[in-house]
């Protein structure tokens, strides 16, 4: 007979670690996720950079434009890969896996936290893949090790906030397919209406304030400063933190609430 001392009890850290490992394993074994997280941003980096370079910066070399756009494609990779977070969260909800977790004596935060930690690991992988390919094509770090660290941390913070947002959507949406179709369009607009492809001055007047407020612009500009120097990154880092914190609190709150209500 089992006594109370050996009965399983919730542990936020262990439970989260176990579920993060599960999510990470599933991602690594899903061809679609790998495609979205690694192949997609690399394909865009190679193909879009080479086609836009001479149009956007007629007097600069291809390598120079790649130097300019690697932060964009890394950030786009993270942005679109979170769609698979939404799909995975929705699948867990509809297959009953979530229900099973809810009936286990584990921390109620662990399922969500585990997923988001696994996401952050995937985002780091995306970031590294795109950056390494970018370095092969001409991307350079000039600001030393602190620059490299800043360059890696800022998009991960952004991805963390975005993942919470996606999970909240996945838990509320009736159809994953429809939600993904809508989000895909929204994320495209966010990615393009930024300083990712062209400098702010090349955007039409009305689009400039939109691009300046766009979280993707802040992430990209901060990454550019950390990689190459230039204007101080402080404001962009703060803005990224603000966006991430806001999304995390709002979406995290919604996600936990919705999840509790579905019990």
């Amino acid at each position, binding site marked *: 007979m089992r006594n109370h001392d050996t009965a399983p009890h919730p542990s936020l850290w262990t439970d989260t670690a176990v579920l993060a490992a599960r999510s990470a394993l599933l991602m690594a074994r899903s*061809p*679609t996720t790998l*495609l979205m997280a690694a*192949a*997609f941003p690399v*394909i*865009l980096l190679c*193909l*879009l950079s*080479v*086609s*836009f*370079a*001479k*149009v*956007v910066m*007629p007097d600069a070399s*291809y390598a120079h434009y790649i130097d300019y756009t690697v932060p964009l494609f890394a950030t786009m990779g993270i942005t679109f890969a979170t769609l698979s977070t939404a799909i995975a969260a929705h699948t867990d909800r509809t297959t009953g896996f979530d229900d099973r977790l809810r009936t286990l004596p584990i921390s109620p935060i662990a399922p969500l936290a585990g997923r988001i930690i696994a996401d952050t690991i995937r985002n780091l992988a995306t970031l590294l893949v795109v950056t390494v390919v970018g370095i092969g094509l001409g991307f350079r770090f000039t600001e030393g090790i602190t620059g490299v660290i800043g360059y890696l941390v800022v998009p991960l913070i952004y991805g963390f906030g975005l993942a919470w947002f996606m999970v909240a959507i996945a838990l509320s949406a009736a*159809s994953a*397919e*429809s939600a*993904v*179709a*809508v989000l*895909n*369009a929204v994320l*495209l*607009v966010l990615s*393009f*209406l930024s300083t990712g*492809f*062209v400098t702010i001055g*090349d*955007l*039409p007047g009305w*689009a400039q304030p939109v691009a300046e407020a766009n979280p993707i612009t802040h992430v990209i500009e901060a990454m550019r400063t950390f990689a190459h120097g230039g204007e101080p990154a402080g404001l962009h880092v703060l803005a990224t933190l603000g966006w991430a914190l806001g999304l995390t609190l709002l979406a995290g709150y919604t996600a936990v609430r919705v999840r509790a209500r579905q019990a």
Partner: protein
Amino acid sequence: MSPTLIPTPQPSFVSDTAQLAGRHLRLMSRRPSSIIGAIVLPLVFAFLFFTVLNGVMERAGVDYAQYVIPAVVLQAMFFSAISASVWAAEDASGGMSARLRSMPISRTAPVLSLLVGELVRALLSLVVLVIAGYGFGFRFERGAGYVLLFVALAIGCAAAACAGYIVLGFAIAKVEQVQAIGGLLYYPLLLVSNLFVPAEAFPGWLQPLVENQPVSRIADALRAVSTLGHEDLGRTILIAVLWIAGLLTAFTFLAPRAFGRVR
């Protein structure tokens, strides 16, 4: 009782295709992601390319509205093709293909109806994009006959692309894999082309490929029939027509083989 006394329903190419095309269109109209893919996404791309690149293209002396509307029209034709491949894979992986193949109906109808349904969808995307294009400043600068030629070339391209993607969908018959492979084909075909930027923007060694690949050739023809000032109008149209006819013939030959191993 003699079996010959039982009336057997006769296959009818026209009626069977019409019934199944009606089914396909009805299913698409009830799927939010299909509507987004047919209408919203093409508009988003038209809007984004125009907004982001119009400034830099103007500087380079390109009338970008005239340039990019044919491009996003062709892109939308590929969206139809990708949709066709997914529906084909769904029919093949569920029981629908098997049931249709065991019924006394036209052998061609199940494949052709997908094509017909997708071409209706493609025409809808085309009309929506041209109307939006007029807002950006795009104009048909030649006569009404050339407008019809524009539509015919675009739908011809959609037919060739759909036929190829339908072969892919039936041959692989797994939705996720079809989406992945379809996407991997789509990016290089559309981005290593003169769709969004002129061929001269690409590195010298890549330019022959960019100029001569079918998507660029068809885009050339769409621009030639919509915009004044193109030399060699007849030759440009002829090359596009030959590409479309050649690809369509090849895929039409393959499609029934992919659909079923029995007559």
